[in-house]
């Protein structure tokens, strides 16, 4: 296309080198970014304002940040979250940590492939209502137009647009901010970069146990992000990685609670019952409670679940022996752990907490 070529030449002539936006901390790979939404500092800054803005809920009571608190690695500390109209989600608010590397979004959705798509669920979904903006997109734009700070923020973020106040630009800016939530400066990271004092003896023993064939943790919590479904420059995405960990077995045939059956909801395939995506373990110590439904309160109890090869629930509507779930991942075989070993594994998991990330003012509420 001659015109595109011409524009590129003009840009080069005017700007020389394109302005580099360095947003990836040392030690982390470069995330894949959708071609139509390249990262810029201005978009991240606009996205940060939107992320913390209660104008983004129907009744203006909640923002994205209501259920994604920075000090909790952008989780909310609740088993499930309460939306702007009082309805509850079925699942635990996921940590927004290194989500730029994730290949599919939310707990068990094989078709949400970008953050730009994913956020339409909390913004506009009605089953359950989260932010509750369904059908209110025009009003949202008018609300943003009425806030003086946005005129400059949108213009800087989308300088080529005549009227940059569009829903597409809102989602692109929010996605850019979310991609910028990168955590790579935990004690464990400093240790792997060559600081032998960054990790305690206990945490080092815990790391070895974590990566042992006895505990099997590392198969699914794999690689730099402790997560098996990641992509980055040089590593193309591989989708469809979801696991059943034997958390439930209601009917003895592998059943999970209705409305929370994981990948099965999408595929209808029996063997996909209870299959959920592996979350990152970075900052895991501050993101309790755990599992897709927040049904385990502490890391120690999570270890109990995996040590048993699947959780047994003795009584109540969800009673069942998860260990015998026929769809359980082959890596969930169970193991024995001494009290000292348990303390070591937990010390290792706690060494993944990145204090700088949890307190970085660049990620905090700008209002």
């Amino acid at each position, binding site marked *: 296309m001659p015109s595109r070529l011409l524009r590129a030449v003009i840009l080069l002539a005017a700007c020389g080198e394109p302005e580099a936006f360095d947003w990836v901390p040392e030690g982390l790979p470069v995330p894949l970014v*959708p071609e139509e939404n390249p990262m810029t500092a201005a978009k991240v800054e606009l996205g940060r304002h939107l992320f913390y803005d209660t104008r983004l809920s129907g009744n203006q009571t909640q923002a994205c940040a209501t259920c994604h608190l920075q000090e909790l690695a952008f989780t909310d500390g609740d088993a499930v979250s309460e939306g702007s109209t*009082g*309805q*509850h989600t079925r699942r635990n608010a996921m940590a927004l940590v290194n989500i730029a590397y994730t*290949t*599919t979004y*939310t707990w068990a*959705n*094989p*078709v*949400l*492939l*970008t953050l*730009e*798509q994913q956020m*339409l*669920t909390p*913004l*506009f*979904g*009605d*089953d*359950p209502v989260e932010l509750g*903006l*369904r*059908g*209110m*997109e025009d009003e949202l734009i008018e609300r943003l137009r009425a806030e003086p700070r946005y005129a400059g923020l949108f213009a800087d973020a989308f300088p080529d647009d005549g009227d940059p106040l*569009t*829903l*597409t630009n*809102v*989602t692109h800016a929010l996605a850019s901010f979310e991609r910028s939530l990168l955590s790579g400066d935990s004690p464990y990271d400093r240790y792997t970069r060559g600081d032998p004092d960054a990790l305690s003896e206990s945490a080092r023993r815990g790391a070895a146990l974590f990566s042992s064939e006895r505990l099997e943790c590392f198969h699914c919590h794999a690689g730099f992000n402790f997560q098996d479904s990641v*992509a980055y420059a040089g590593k*193309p*995405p591989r*989708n*469809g990685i979801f696991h059943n960990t034997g958390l439930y077995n209601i009917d003895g045939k592998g059943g999970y609670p*209705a*409305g929370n059956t994981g990948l099965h*909801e*999408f*595929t*209808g395939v029996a063997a996909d019952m209870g299959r959920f995506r592996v979350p990152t373990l970075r900052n895991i110590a501050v993101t309790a409670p755990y599992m897709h439904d927040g049904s385990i309160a502490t890391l120690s109890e999570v270890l109990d679940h995996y040590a048993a090869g699947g959780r047994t629930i003795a009584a109540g509507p969800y009673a069942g022996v998860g260990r015998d779930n026929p769809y359980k991942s082959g890596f969930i075989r169970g193991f024995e752990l001494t009290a000292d070993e348990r303390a070591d594994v937990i010390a290792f998991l706690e060494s993944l907490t990145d204090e700088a990330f949890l307190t970085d003012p660049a990620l905090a509420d700008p209002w």
Partner: protein
Amino acid sequence: MHPLRILPLLLLPAFACGDEEGGFVEEPVKISFEARVAGEPFKCGQDFTGLGSDGATGTPQDLRFYVHDVRLITEDGAEHPVDIEDDGDYQGGGVALLDFEDGSGNCINGTNSIHTTITGIVRAAPRHGAGANHFSGLRFRIGVPEDVNHDDLTALPSPLNDTTMSWSWNYGHIFFAAWGVFGGDAPYTAGLHVGSIGCEGDAMAGQIVSCANSNRPEIALEGFDVDANKVIVDWGAVWAQLPLAAPSADCEEMDGETTCACHSFGPDALCTTLFTPLGLDWKDGKDTSNQSVFRVQ
């Protein structure tokens, strides 16, 4: 060729637009729909009786659906595609959104405007004047075509960008929505959202590869004269096979509210019951050619 034989061809552009190949012209067409509950006009905020398999009472909460691939059928059996006019609101991107709820009563999740006609251009033999052609049938598909169903909602033209018909968690559109409030003094909600399921994506390409169950029923109506008839869509027929007086075993309670909903992926019994009147087989998402929601008036 006899000079008189070519005369009509030469005259055609004077009273009809488009090309004349095969004697076809492009003419504007308007296909009217009307929503009913059995014999009564559909209305938000009104109670209807005799609903479901047990003759229950209920009131509408929603009735909207997307239509594409519209064809008018001539008496010789030929299909003539209707290009849906782009009105920047309820029609565009090759689809029309038909909307019968006006936001009143219990239709609080909807919008206060309605849209009950499809306007477009049909290419066929002229239907007015001497030797006029008659359409005697109508066929269309419910839903949004797969090639636009999974695109970025925020970048699609209206009505494909309607967030109230988006199925954001399933990354596509709700093709057909029918909801109501039933149960009398112990009210509960029952509803149907039809959309494609079993979809698998390819993140590398940023696209959806395919959906196992398309769930786009073809509605074929005979004896439909576009200038004289309208299409009746019966909200009550959606529930015909479902007992409605009290919530069934498939219903879900959450935050003190009971909902009996088929969001296309199950539960099995509920979805089968609600898909069947639309002429859809819930197991495979294919047509059964046996629908009971639409009829000709």
